């Protein structure tokens, strides 16, 4: 008889405790919505991760794009904590095609570029030119073909 009372009490307590709208854990739904963007994409670094930035510029040639990348972050971008490892010495740059890939001629030693700098360059080019693999050359030196690392 006592056990029965206990069970009824527990049930009642459960009912009382479950009343109303309770806080929940984080519920994960579908993928985040993607929207279109305007402007020119560059890839800078945020905590050593390539991060996209947009500049409200008119579309331009890839050569000029890489030159702008070599100029480093703008004031606002630096203020937001973004950095670049692309040395200014890569300019002038010539971008051509080689088979189904993109051939980028830099004015600096491509082997001396840091991994992050290469990622910035490759991602910036692919952000405009699409999925074609990118090869960096300087005279006889070449790196690639390379692709921008994917994001989740």
């Amino acid at each position, binding site marked *: 008889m006592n056990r029965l009372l206990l069970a009824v009490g527990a049930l009642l307590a459960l009912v009382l405790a479950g009343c109303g*709208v309770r806080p929940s854990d984080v519920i994960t739904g579908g993928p985040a919505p993607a929207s279109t963007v305007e402007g020119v994409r560059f890839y800078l670094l945020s905590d050593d991760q390539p991060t996209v930035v947009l500049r409200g510029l008119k579309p331009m040639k890839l050569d000029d794009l890489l030159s702008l990348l070599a100029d480093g972050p703008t004031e606002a971008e630096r203020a937001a904590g973004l950095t670049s490892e692309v040395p200014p010495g890569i300019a002038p740059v010539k971008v051509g095609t080689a088979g189904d890939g993109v051939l980028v001629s830099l004015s600096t030693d491509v082997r001396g570029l840091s991994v992050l700098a290469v990622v910035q360059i490759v991602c910036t080019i692919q952000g405009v030119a699409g999925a074609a693999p990118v090869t960096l050359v300087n005279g006889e030196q070449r790196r690639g073909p390379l692709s921008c690392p994917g994001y989740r």
Partner: protein
Amino acid sequence: MTGWGLGLRGRLLLAFAMLGLTTTALVAGVSYGQARTVVLQKAQDAAVNSLVDEVTRLAPVYQLPPGPKQLNAIAAALAAGPDAAAVVYRDQFAGIHPSEIPQPLRADVREGNVVWQRFSWDGTPALAIGTQLLTKRPDGRTEPTGIEVYRLHSLAEEQHSIDQLAALAWSTGAASLVLAVLLALLAARGVLRPVSELGRAARRLGEGDLRTRATVRGSDELAGVALIFNQTAERLERQVGELRRMEADARRFVADVSHELRTPLAAMTAVTDVLDEEAERLPGDAGKAARLVSQETQNLAQLVEDLIEISRFDAGTAALSRDDIDVGAAIRATLRARGWTDRVTTTLPDGVVALLDPRRLDVIVANLVGNALRHGAAPVTVDLRVVGGSVEVTVADHGAGLAPGVRDHVFDRFYKADSARSRSEGAGLGLAIALENARLHGGTLVAGNRAPHGAVFTLRFPTGGIS
């Protein structure tokens, strides 16, 4: 009975109430939970879909890192109606302060999915929805822009409808409890009425009303019990009736025989009177035989008188002819008439008056004193006292007293403590008659022993007698 001391009714009530409560709690609780889940799910899905929809229709982002202008534009576009919105890019934000958004949600937003969480927003339940803005790359893949948007949607309306559901569940529970108790009372009445009727019938039967019968209703187990009870009562009544009839027959037979013996005995007594006179002159054995016949005839006549007296008691025809008498004087007269005055020590105060039948008092006292003189040892004492509202006459001797086995049967008819006793000492009806006489007066006669030894017979009458 359980340890709680509940009756059948209480246990039935408790069981019904428990059953009603448990069932209602389960049904109402489960349906309440389901309804709540559905309500919340619907509200959440609508809010999430609305946010996703609005985010996809946002004006394109043209600058990253975004300027305050762009962040404010996004926040303004998303803060629709009563819902607050927040837009966060690294250290910048627009709309409400990011600290108002639950921290676990902020951590999970960076995983790239739409996430939401219910939380308490200033005491009211609210839904926080968060997502990142993604951008499509030319190769078809998406990448995060780093802009996070949040919207806080109040769930007060849902809370209200859920509270109404709860109120409904509670009132349903209360109603079902009341119903259960009513049903239990009804069921208890149906079950307990026959039980208590049966109990009453059994009690009446136990008190001696053999004509008691229980009412048999329907054909359930209780009806079966009532039927068996009735059969038992019927058999008992029949057998007791048989016994009573047999006993009455036996008594009537004794009474008839006694009456038939009376007339010839009267004639014989007359003859023995003559024989007694002649016995003196009869020689040797003839004289002895004449005296023996005379003695036995007197005993027989006494026995027949005793039997007739007993028969009157049994038939209920013994009549009292009462008078206000001085009890001490009456006892003295009894002793004197039998010539026992010298052999008995008396304490008989004068002036003890009671309403008694003097003849029956004489019979009782003569019997008790006669027995004491015959079976006990001197000195025999007769004491008269007034105790409370009654007169107490004590007859005691200093003999061996009554053996325990004898004491219980001393008032039985034809009972003789010593079976080897000579026949001339009486048939064993004396004490039975004394007891009946005492009872006829509304009094008592008790046999006992006293210290250090000796039998005591205590006779007690109410002073006023019974009117």
